[in-house]
């Protein structure tokens, strides 16, 4: 029953997605289109963490570091090469290799949950310091300057594969971002439904039992961690191409926290929740950044986004620990049960 409902839900999402992919660029303004594109891109990052944390049970608190590495790898490669096909692949592969190495030390060392969370976050923070210290002209990769705290501006956008003179315009970028989001979402659904995904969930539920049944939990977790890093890196590539820019703030603690908040608000252990949480929180922080009435009412010049994120994070952990989507589902189910009784 619930399986059939979930695959029906999948078909609905796919149909809506394809309709949006074709229709939306004709209907909405360019400005909105650019906004929606970045929501899609950030949702891909959220999905990568929803998978790694929610399904594989790996507390990758520095997931944004892989996003940043992907963005930087794309930036360095595309400035040197001019054509975007190889840079896109580099933006996926570099974070995967990095994650495989880092994950080997952590997962094969069998460090505990909290240790892993702290190490991944620390890695992100140290990358932040490292990139920030590369302002000088001597820090270059080929023809590309790393740019330190100023970031890397003026990146060429992704082009039609093999044809550098055909860069994507705004509508194309939107289509690419939404298409990528749908692709990642359905790929992850398939992965979770596969044998590999079911073993991952078994390990999340009870690692010792899974190992006693003969599964090498370390191998599965490392593979999930590496896959998640590749997806986050892909999102980073799209982000760098979308804004023609990548800067060190993607490695900062505020951004790392933001990704965690997206997942918690939407609901850990779901994929849809990650997208819902991302859109809600991003919309909220953007709106609070623009509105003048509310800060004036509180006697402030503006509302600091970390203030809002902090309050949301504390409230959700204390009051809605399972997140919006699972809470709604539970409500709906109890309503249905009451109706049928």
């Amino acid at each position, binding site marked *: 029953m619930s399986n059939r409902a979930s695959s029906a839900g999948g078909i609905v999402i796919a149909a809506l997605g394809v309709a949006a992919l074709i229709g939306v660029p004709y209907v909405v303004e360019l400005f909105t289109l650019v906004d929606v594109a970045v929501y899609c891109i950030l949702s891909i990052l959220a999905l990568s963490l929803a998978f790694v944390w929610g399904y594989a049970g790996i*507390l990758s608190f520095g997931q944004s570091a892989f996003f940043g590495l992907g963005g930087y790898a794309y930036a360095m490669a595309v400035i040197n090469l001019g054509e975007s096909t190889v840079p896109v692949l580099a933006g996926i592969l570099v974070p995967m290799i990095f994650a495989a190495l*880092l994950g080997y*030390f*952590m997962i*094969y*060392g*069998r*460090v*505990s*949950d*909290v*240790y892993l*969370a*702290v*190490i991944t*976050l*620390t*890695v992100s*923070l*140290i990358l932040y*310091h*490292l990139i*920030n*210290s590369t302002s000088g002209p001597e820090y270059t990769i080929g023809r590309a300057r790393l740019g330190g705290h100023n970031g890397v501006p003026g990146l060429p956008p992704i082009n039609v594969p093999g044809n550098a003179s055909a860069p994507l315009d705004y509508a194309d970028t939107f289509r690419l971002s939404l298409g990528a989001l749908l692709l990642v979402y359905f790929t992850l659904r398939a992965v979770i439904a596969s044998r590999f995904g079911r073993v991952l969930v078994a390990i999340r539920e009870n690692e010792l039992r899974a190992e006693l049944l003969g599964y090498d939990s370390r191998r599965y977790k490392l593979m999930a961690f590496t896959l998640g890093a590749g997806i986050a890196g892909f999102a980073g590539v799209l982000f760098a191409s979308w804004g023609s820019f990548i800067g060190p703030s993607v490695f*900062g*603690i*505020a951004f790392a*926290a933001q990704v*965690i908040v997206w997942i*918690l608000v939407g609901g850990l252990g779901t994929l849809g929740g990650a997208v819902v949480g991302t859109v809600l929180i991003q919309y909220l922080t953007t709106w609070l950044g623009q509105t003048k009435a509310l800060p004036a009412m509180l006697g*402030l010049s503006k*509302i*600091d*986004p*970390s*203030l*809002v*994120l*902090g*309050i*949301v*994070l*504390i409230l959700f*952990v*204390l009051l809605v*620990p399972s997140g919006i989507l699972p809470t709604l589902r539970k409500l709906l189910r109890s309503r249905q049960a009451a109706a049928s009784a």
Partner: protein
Amino acid sequence: MDYAAIFVIQVAYAIASLALISVGLAVIYGMMRVINFAHGEFLMLGGYAVILPVQAGVNVWFAMLVIAPLAVGLFGVVVERIVIRPLYGRVIDTVLATWGLSLLLIGLASAALGYYQEGSKPPLGSVVIGAYRESVYTFFVIGITAAIMLALYVGLKRTRFGLLARGTMQNSAMAAGLGVDTGKVYAATFGLGAALSGLAGGILAPISGVVPVIGATYIAKAFITVISGGATVLAGTASAATLLGAVNQVVTFLSTPVVGEVALLAAAIILLRLLPAGITGRLFRGGI
């Protein structure tokens, strides 16, 4: 010769400052198995608890050694009551809640105090060692860190509170069964950890200045030191700070501070591959 002396002093200072910024975090982690993600902001609050009174004319030593630990310690007790206590036993949720607290404090500090750098002059002047000049404050930081560690050792080993705290740490159910109010012990320990963080933030404020986001510059090193040390508060902090501080400072001498930090992280990750529960998971077991 004088170069060697400076080198030794710098390494000692790196080790001391690493132990200083980590010890409050280590107390809370050792007792509750909770990594306090708001640790950096406790240090930040300690910094403001020195800078603001000093600007209002209070003696800098009084602000540093009395106001900062007291203010942040009391704040820690309140935080424990409101945010930590409802989440006992849910380690990950506690970590997340303290992360929320961290963001909230950054936001509040930015709104209330602005983003600009607050500074105050390091007291005590400097001494000349051969061709080099070293701030006397450096020696003060090394000395006071040693004093804090010693006081903590005596406090945990010789006092009644120390005994109850260690008992609760080893087996909280047993301690409760013997009539210890473990809730109070947890609250007091969290307060103690916060007070130590406030003290550390206060001591470092004259050197580094204070901004609302300064916590982020400390926590990477503090986190790594505490988890490399493991769950044993003093032995863990001391051994990890010694190892990682030395690695950090030697590499900093050879290249730049940022590369030193990367080396610190790399050393810690390799260490954890070999000793996944930290140094004290294997060595110095049963210490404090």
